[in-house]
């Protein structure tokens, strides 16, 4: 065809839509230091808040003397629980149906707990005032080990709950018990275990870690006493939910509350919850009538806001002699700290841990989870994963390796024998999930071929022989993991937080000149939403991505949504974006039919325009239709070109992947070098490959941190011994290897564009690949499982325990 119309291909390229490695629009300001993070905000008269925090893990607060602090010039107020009581704000509800002390009410239950809130003219004076407050404590025995929480002589931690026999998630069987959650077929699983040819059993601890985004949590609260409006800027991954919670807690009507998430310096689950600092800043602003800023420092962040994991798992896996899994049982002891502040959908107190049958066709399974209180910080957030999915994936991926050792079957081979087959999708797991789509065997085979797995095993055999001959002091380990995530929470029928259904939203306005703005209920914390959501829309409505502004995070302008965590932005808000785009296109089609004087059905969509079927030169571009929408619409049609979609997903999405990690361990020092890490991810339709690769790199680096060094290290008194970046491991560029990424594409059948979400997959799959590699290095010496984190000290200890110490 030689018409003047550019080829479809050329016009598609101009859109920079789905599948394009589009450069990020966010970066223009970030690379110039023009981001706008919460601590960058400055308002006339703004005051600074700071906390007095408990030095003890468990103590009674006998008295608080704030006289000297109040006398200090520049100090405007000091709040304690006594001051909050008349407002009924000294306790607040948690996302998990428990309550948490905003300021310590008679007792402190973890080191770093908020005891008093100082408000002063600047942060230096606030720090001085914190030092001047005298708190008299009576130290109580600290309960740090969750395995002792439900002992008969365990101290009562929660005086407010000690006589309550039931909690938000059913019966409580001990004063330190939070809940029991059970799913699956207990009797059937017991039968499978009893009848199995082989049962492998292992204790698997996923240690307490912390998301530790580079920006800590913080907010600025500003109460306008004239009109009664409260504005709260802050590091919120879910601003609308914060607005609703703030209204319910404070009694301020929701229409008078505005929540704004400015740029956020990484979240990783740390910024989902509601923290005492937010409540105290709000109260202080209400009392003082000026804006009040609170930003935690790094030690406060590590001590008090949002730990993750701390799952103590006992697994039993049954199999036939040829390695076919016949049943799986798991009991979890979940350390929830002093208050149950997990961020899980209401009906799932252990999140989606029941995805723990993983990628395997396991006929029967049974899971029980007991949550317990300890004298540690509250949290239990989904640190770069969907709710408790990392724990589940680590559990099954370690268990299947343990089983492989027992049966002397290669870890890759035992996975292949048990993977759910392509033709089994949609697949209903023994614990009730319906996996939407997958092609697991292809992914595994591709990954094994990419790393030349057979050659790696040959090399390892030679390495072990050389080691036995004393020719080397290094051992090689190969870790394989195959994970299935469950993300995109979620269908309202089973997913809500505090009664709010977990839909998400997008509102689009197309301007007369053919550009557009779209607003979403999600919030980017580095994922690049302003770039990728414009790409989804570009492909849907034929407007170049560069002409589409994406806005998020301001509850005044954005439609209601549940925010960004659990890899839900693309599966849920991304779907809403596509659906709202389709509404725009449908209206544009009617306008095009009117202008071209044909029936709607005689038109077909062609990249950025509607054209008459068989007469391609008769067409109207989206730019033309946008203008027509404002001056020349069919009789009876409303003018304008806007749409909104609130998307309730019919199912979760199930991204998956196959990872291989190769390590070389110096057994005399424990130094473990990551020689190679190959990650194949299948996240369905790929929106922006550059951003996907970046997400995978970042998630793998966080997995590296968790597997190889992170642990929140409490002593017996409840002191957190590594609450700074001096001691808490964040990898530098030196420890971090060069990542290799790869992919297959299996679209989600129920998502409008087939996308599944990717941000968290690498953390979910990565941790077990690292851990499996370290375990594998010692497998020939009889080791079945050694606990994370695999830092040099622990790896060296493992070598020692196996008799490999230098003579």
């Amino acid at each position, binding site marked *: 065809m030689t018409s003047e119309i550019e080829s479809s291909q050329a016009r598609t390229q101009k859109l920079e839509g789905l599948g394009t490695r589009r450069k990020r629009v966010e970066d223009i300001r970030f690379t110039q230091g023009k981001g706008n993070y919460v601590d960058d905000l400055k308002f006339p008269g703004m005051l600074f808040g700071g906390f007095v925090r408990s030095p003890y893990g468990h103590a009674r607060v006998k008295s608080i003397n704030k006289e000297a602090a109040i006398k200090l010039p520049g100090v405007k107020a000091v709040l304690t629980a006594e001051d909050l009581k008349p407002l009924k704000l000294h306790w607040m509800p948690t996302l998990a149906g428990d309550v948490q002390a905003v300021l310590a009410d008679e007792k402190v239950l973890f080191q770093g707990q908020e005891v008093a809130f100082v408000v002063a003219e600047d942060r230096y004076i606030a720090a001085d005032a914190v030092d001047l407050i005298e708190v008299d404590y009576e130290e109580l025995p600290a309960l740090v080990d969750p395995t002792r929480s439900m002992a008969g002589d365990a101290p009562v931690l929660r005086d407010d709950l000690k006589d309550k026999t039931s909690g938000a998630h059913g019966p409580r069987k001990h004063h330190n018990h939070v809940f029991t959650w059970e799913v699956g077929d207990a009797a059937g699983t017991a039968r499978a275990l009893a009848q199995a040819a082989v049962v492998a059993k292992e204790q698997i601890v996923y240690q307490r870690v912390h998301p530790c985004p*580079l920006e800590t949590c913080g907010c600025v609260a500003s109460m306008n006493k004239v009109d009664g409006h409260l504005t709260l800027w802050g590091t919120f991954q879910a601003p609308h939910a914060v607005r609703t919670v703030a209204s319910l807690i404070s009694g301020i009507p929701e229409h008078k509350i505005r929540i704004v998430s400015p740029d956020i310096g990484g979240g990783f689950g740390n910024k989902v919850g509601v923290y005492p600092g937010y409540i105290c800043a709000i109260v202080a602003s209400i009392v003082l009538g000026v804006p009040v800023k609170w930003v935690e420092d790094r030690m406060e962040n590590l001590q008090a806001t949002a730990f993750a994991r701390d799952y103590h798992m006992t697994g039993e896996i049954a199999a036939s002699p040829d390695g076919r899994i016949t049943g799986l049982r798991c009991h979890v002891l979940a350390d929830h700290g002093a208050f149950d502040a997990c961020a899980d959908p209401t009906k799932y107190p252990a999140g989606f841990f029941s995805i723990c049958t993983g990628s395997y066709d396991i006929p029967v399974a049974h899971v029980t989870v007991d949550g317990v209180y300890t004298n540690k910080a509250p949290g239990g957030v989904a640190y770069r994963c969907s709710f408790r999915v990392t724990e589940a994936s680590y559990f099954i991926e370690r268990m299947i390796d343990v089983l492989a050792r027992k049966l002397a079957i290669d870890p890759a081979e035992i996975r292949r024998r048990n993977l759910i087959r392509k033709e089994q999708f949609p697949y209903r797991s023994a614990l009730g999930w319906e996996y939407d789509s997958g092609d697991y065997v292809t992914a595994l085979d591709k990954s094994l071929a990419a790393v030349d797995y057979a050659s790696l095993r040959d090399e390892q055999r030679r390495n072990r022989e050389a080691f036995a001959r004393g020719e080397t002091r290094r051992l090689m380990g190969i870790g394989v993991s195959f994970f299935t995530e469950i993300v995109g929470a979620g269908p309202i029928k089973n997913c809500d937080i505090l009664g709010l259904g977990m839909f998400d939203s997008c509102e689009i306005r197309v301007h007369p000149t053919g550009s557009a703005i779209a607003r979403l209920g999600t919030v980017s914390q580095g994922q690049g939403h302003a770039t990728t959501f414009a790409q989804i829309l570009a492909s849907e409505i034929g407007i170049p991505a560069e002409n589409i502004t994406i806005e998020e995070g301001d509850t005044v302008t954005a439609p209601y949504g549940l925010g960004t965590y659990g890899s839900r932005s693309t599966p849920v808000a991304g779907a809403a974006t596509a659906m709202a785009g389709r509404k725009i296109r449908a209206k544009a089609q009617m306008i095009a039919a009117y202008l071209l004087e044909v029936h709607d059905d005689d038109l077909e969509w062609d990249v950025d325009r509607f054209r008459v079927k068989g007469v391609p030169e008769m067409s109207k571009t989206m730019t033309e239709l946008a203008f027509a929408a404002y001056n020349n619409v069919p009789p009876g049609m409303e003018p304008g070109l806007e749409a909104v979609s609130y998307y309730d997903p019919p199912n979760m999405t199930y991204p998956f992947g196959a990872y291989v990690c190769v390590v070389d361990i110096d057994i005399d020092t424990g130094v473990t070098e990551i020689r190679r890490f190959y990650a194949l991810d299948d996240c369905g339709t790929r929106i922006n490959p550059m951003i996907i690769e970046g997400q995978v790199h970042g998630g793998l680096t966080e997995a590296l941190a968790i597997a190889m060094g992170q642990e929140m290290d409490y002593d017996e008194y409840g002191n957190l011994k590594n609450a700074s970046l001096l001691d808490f491991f964040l990898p530098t560029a030196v420890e971090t290897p060069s990542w290799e990424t790869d992919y297959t594409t299996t679209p989600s059948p129920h998502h409008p564009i087939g996308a599944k979400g990717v941000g968290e997959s690498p953390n979910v799959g990565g941790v077990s690949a690292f851990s499996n590699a370290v375990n594998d290095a010692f497998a020939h010496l009889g080791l079945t499982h050694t606990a994370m984190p695999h830092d040099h000290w622990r790896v060296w200890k493992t070598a020692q325990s196996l008799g490999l110490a230098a003579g």
Partner: protein
Amino acid sequence: MAKMHLELRVNKKEVEALAEPRLLLIHLLREQLGITGPHIGCDTSHCGACTVDMNGKSVKSCTVFAVQAQGADIITIEGLVDGDGSLHPLQEAFREHHGLQCGFCTPGMITRAYRLLQENPNPSETEIRHGIAGNLCRCTGYLTIVRAIRAAAERMNGAGEAAE
């Protein structure tokens, strides 16, 4: 507390300020001078988000007193943009190679890389990794940062050769 009178040069401009002896340089920059590019990530000089260039060296401005900057020549991320608004090759390369995600470490990272490339105009991948080891990033996994710095070095070296 008595304040000291400071005169220093920040991003090629002479500035004056009054500072308590205990005021940290990062707070002088962010709160008094309104230069919010450098961030605070850890308070203990481990993360490097507050990195600025002071008298030709990378410093972590959360661990420098403002009074130590008396008479100093300071460059922050904001100062890497040319007077005509054109970006430094590092700023362009970070975008081109997806060397940032949340953007919080980026000002410190680029400012450190700016000095690294003056210390070593043609660094290897290993030298870059060691050269930025004082700057933590929680998002990218560093690979794309390393690529960005390498690309910027190549471009700057190429430009230098072309000018000769």
